[in-house]
């Protein structure tokens, strides 16, 4: 969930009143936001870097607010306050419009076919006659950053460039060139670099180095130039210095390049809807003609207003309320979804503005009705869905066995299903190649390289962490191991195992043997239906290991662990164990 940090006083001045923390918390809660933290720049720096570093930092109070991940329109103070004011019926939702330009306008962006190999989509728009202040400018930059991080997936899907239009001249060309053929002065640098040099330069930049991989190994890099070959940007890495925006900038050229056209449009719509507020003609955005490689073109931003027909009856039924059509319409209006009654009140025509790309389906509209009505004002009732409950058989058997084993004096462990390759192989005297284990592709630590194929390592690790406890230790676990299995759709399956460990100054094999006998007794397996066949296993002491055969089926092993195994698990006492598959007893 994205978090936006907004200055409290700016927030309150736009909302037209001040709130106590609790009041503001309640307002957020109702609207689906969460006041995560009240802090200041100084506090944040001192928390992250120490108090001495925070010396002189701003003490202006900042509200950190959690915003739902699909509400891009709430990622800046402009949008968040607009949403809240409309929710409180203190403001009417603005209408966002594109100003069409003559077809021969120079403000075109021509997409070259070469971009297909690296970043095929681009859209653009112009904010005309905008007035920046320090606050507005900062918010403009912050919003771009939030969009980059969230919907843009760290710029990999969408990257934004904003430029002072008065420093450049259309038409603009979006193309892809070999890195050696790209040369420009990057933002806030004093000299020109080739793209190859830039990648080298930025490889040590704490901020930009995270984006280099997106294009690093591509044969061509994306580049946007104006008609005079002035570089606007090399997306998704850096803008040119030439087109840098200052507080004096009046006309802003916004471009979004992307690997996903829909997301590029959402990002562009979001930026211009939020910041056209500061244009001489508020909420009006100047279009840019974007020409595709095939010669077709579209005007951007699209700023689509889509209509959805919904039934008040269905809405009431879905939520469990009984509001009339006009009341539902006014609830929706509070959620920036202006609605009109049609068909004599049988239907509502809901207009979805370009700020609400999160509305995909009627169910999203229903949710907004419920939010505006107040989730906590809905009657809580139980449906008359009558069902006879059934337990999952293997879980039922597991719970019954757990009780019996604990009653026999053993204590239950709960260990991880993921472990190291060593745990299931080397430490047990086996080769990992012979183990039918599921391997993790991207573990963050060595502790999670494979899914366990046996419960034993987890229990032995539990013993190792509890060596100070009085002996003997008698432990067990009944849980799943994971085995490769080509017959399953995913190629692996779980198997419910039971493992018991006796750890003492003497091996105490008869204790483990006795527990196994007891297990067979409660599973109603008579003595002559199971037997132990001596077998060699590297994990066990020679001559003290057997396969457990129940009615001719091998269900596991029991025996005394090999001293090497004991040592490798950082233990120093003898240890006898058994581990069986309990699924044959279902």
């Amino acid at each position, binding site marked *: 969930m994205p978090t936006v940090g907004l200055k409290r006083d700016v927030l309150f001045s736009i909302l037209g009143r001040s709130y106590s923390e609790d009041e503001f918390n309640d307002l957020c809660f109702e609207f689906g936001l969460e006041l995560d933290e009240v802090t200041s720049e100084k506090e944040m720096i001192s928390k992250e870097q120490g108090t001495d570093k925070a010396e002189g930092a701003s003490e202006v109070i900042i509200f950190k607010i959690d915003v739902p991940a699909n509400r891009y329109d709430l990622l800046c103070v402009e949008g968040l306050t607009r949403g809240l004011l409309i929710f409180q019926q203190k403001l009417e939702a603005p209408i966002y419009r594109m100003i069409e330009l003559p077809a021969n306008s120079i403000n075109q962006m021509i997409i070259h076919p070469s971009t297909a190999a690296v970043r095929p989509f681009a859209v653009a728009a112009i904010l005309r006659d905008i007035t920046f202040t320090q606050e507005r400018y900062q918010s403009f930059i912050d919003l771009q950053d939030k969009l980059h991080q969230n919907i843009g997936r760290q710029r990999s899907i969408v990257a934004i460039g904003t430029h002072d239009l008065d420093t450049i001249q259309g038409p603009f060309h979006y193309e892809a060139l070999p890195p050696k053929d790209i040369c420009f002065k990057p933002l806030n640098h004093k000299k020109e670099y080739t793209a190859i040099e830039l990648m080298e330069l930025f490889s040590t930049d704490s901020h930009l180095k995270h984006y280099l991989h997106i294009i690093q190994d591509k044969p061509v890099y994306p580049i946007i130039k104006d008609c005079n070959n002035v570089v606007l940007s090399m997306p998704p890495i850096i803008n040119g210095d030439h087109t840098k925006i200052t507080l004096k900038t009046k006309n802003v050229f916004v471009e979004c390049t992307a690997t996903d056209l829909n997301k590029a449009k959402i990002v562009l719509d979001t930026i211009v809807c939020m910041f056209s507020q500061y244009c001489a003609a508020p909420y009006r955005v100047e279009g840019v003609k974007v020409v595709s490689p095939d010669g077709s073109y579209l005007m951007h931003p699209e700023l689509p207003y889509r209509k959805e027909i919904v039934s008040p009856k269905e809405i009431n039924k879905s939520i469990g309320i009984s509001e009339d059509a006009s009341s539902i319409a006014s609830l929706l209006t509070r959620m920036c979804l202006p609605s009109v009654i049609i068909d004599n009140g049988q239907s509502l025509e809901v207009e979805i503005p370009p700020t609400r790309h999160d509305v995909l389906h009627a169910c999203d509209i229903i949710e907004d009705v419920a939010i505006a009505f107040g989730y906590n004002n809905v009657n809580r009732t139980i449906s008359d869905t009558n069902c006879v409950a059934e337990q999952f058989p293997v879980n039922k058997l597991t719970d019954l066995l757990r009780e019996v084993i604990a009653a026999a*004096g053993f204590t239950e462990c709960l260990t991880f299903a993921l472990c190291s390759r060593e745990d299931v192989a080397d430490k047990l005297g086996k080769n990992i190649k012979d183990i039918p284990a599921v391997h993790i592709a991207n573990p963050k630590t060595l*502790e999670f390289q494979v899914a366990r194929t046996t419960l034993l390592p987890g229990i032995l690790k539990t013993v190792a962490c509890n060596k100070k406890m009085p002996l003997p230790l008698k432990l067990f676990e009944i849980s799943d191991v994971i085995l490769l299995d080509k017959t399953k759709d995913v190629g692996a399956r779980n198997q419910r195992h039971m493992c018991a460990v006796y750890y003492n100054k003497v091996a105490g094999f008869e204790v483990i043997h006795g527990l196994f006998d007891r297990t067979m007794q409660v599973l109603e397996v008579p003595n002559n239906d199971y037997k132990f066949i001596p077998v060699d296993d590297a994990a066990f002491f020679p001559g003290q290991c057997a396969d457990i055969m129940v009615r001719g089926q091998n269900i596991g092993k029991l025996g005394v662990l090999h001293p090497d195994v004991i040592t490798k698990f950082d233990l120093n006492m003898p240890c006898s164990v058994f581990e069986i598959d309990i699924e044959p007893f279902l």
Partner: protein
Amino acid sequence: MTVCEEAMAELSEKLLTILSERNEFDTLDLSIELQFDHQRLVGAVKSLQSLGDVITCEQRNSKQWELTDEGKEIAEKGSHEALIYESIPLEGINQNELLGRVPNGKVGFSKAMSLGWIQIDKAAKDGPRVTKKVEAIEDGVKEICQLVKNFQIDKITDQQKNECKKRKLISEVKIVSYFVKKGTDFKTSVSKQEIELTADMIASGSWKDKSFKPYNFNALGLPPASGHLHPLLKVRTQFRQIFLEMGFSEMPTNNYVESSFWNFDALFQPQQHPARDAHDTFFIAEPEEAHEFPMDYLEKVKTVHSIGGYGSQGYKYDWKLKEAAKNIMRTHTTGVSARMLYQLAQKEKFTPSKYFSIDRVFRNETLDATHLAEFHQIEGLVADYGLTLGNLMGYIEQFFKKYGIKKLRFKPAYNPYTEPSMEIFSYHEGLKKWVEVGNSGVFRPEMLLPMGLPKNVSVIAWGLSLERPTMIKYGISNIRELFGPKVNLQKIYDNPLCRLDK
């Protein structure tokens, strides 16, 4: 009865006889009178006291001169100086040899010299030679020590007392004594007390004539040899019970390895969603991909993601089978819910159903006090015609009521596969604030309709983690103490019953 116990019983009876004659005595006075060790006498009085009201005791504090260990030795064997004197043969003795013969020889030698009992010839040819100077001596120090031993301290002068004190032969100690009188149940004979009832006593009937030592209720009992269930799994049992009481059937969640298709795509979670990032999810190198899907359904899922349908705009992106086929360690159990709902949709006639599961899920996290790479997810869902958001809140309210939480409120939230979505908050009386306890929502039509469920069937669901309520319940701040090898076994041994509503 041991010899020691017998002696004690004998002493007890003797004391009672004395008491019946005199009506009262002080233990310290009596010990002097009887020449008997005071501590043993007090022991006997205490054991009489434990019989009930046979005697009454009043504690008294006093001071008394006592011999130190050195003093005791002198009382018995004589002073160091006397021993030196006694050790000198008629013809005299080499000084070093003399000092070696007697313990504390140096002290004894200098005392004997200053008393004028012995003399030394330093010019003797074999080294200094010691001879007796007087014919007989009187060992006064020994006599004093014997007087102290026999409680005849009043026969010693203050000067002698100080002398002995300086030589650390006597010391003044605090003495606790008891002033004993007859009690209301006074009798002169007490039979020995039995510790516990035995089978023999019952068989012979002898228990009727015996008196029994009262049980010491202040001591701890003997801890039983016992096995123990794991605290977290005890809570799991209770949550299973709650669902079963509410008529929910358990889903087969024994498949930790899941395809991205069932874990994400089936839930209308787009392929670029951050949750599908390698940063958050364990992907699997072997078996890397799932190889079998219900293809009709898969096509519908692809369509609803890439171009929409069922009244939805879709996400408008290029949906790839390759991405859906990637195997992962499941990030939630909702993939199993999707499988169950898909199966439900394949039945000839839809049957309203209630399902639950409590099982492990995996996140590619680095372990710390509040994060594990695996934890348990609790999930409940109801599929029926015409379910409402109010129903969902109703079920959640009943569910948490059984868990002992009565004050709930719901916050709008975002989740890719539910709409409406609600975070569940409960009021925490201890923390005096609302804390998030779970998530919930109505499954999106984009998830249900491609499965083939009837259009007017809704599925409402909620979920929470098993660990969080358990940590709150038992006041555990480090999750690693609860799950994994670093668990503290003593805490498992000591864990109380799991009664969620208490």
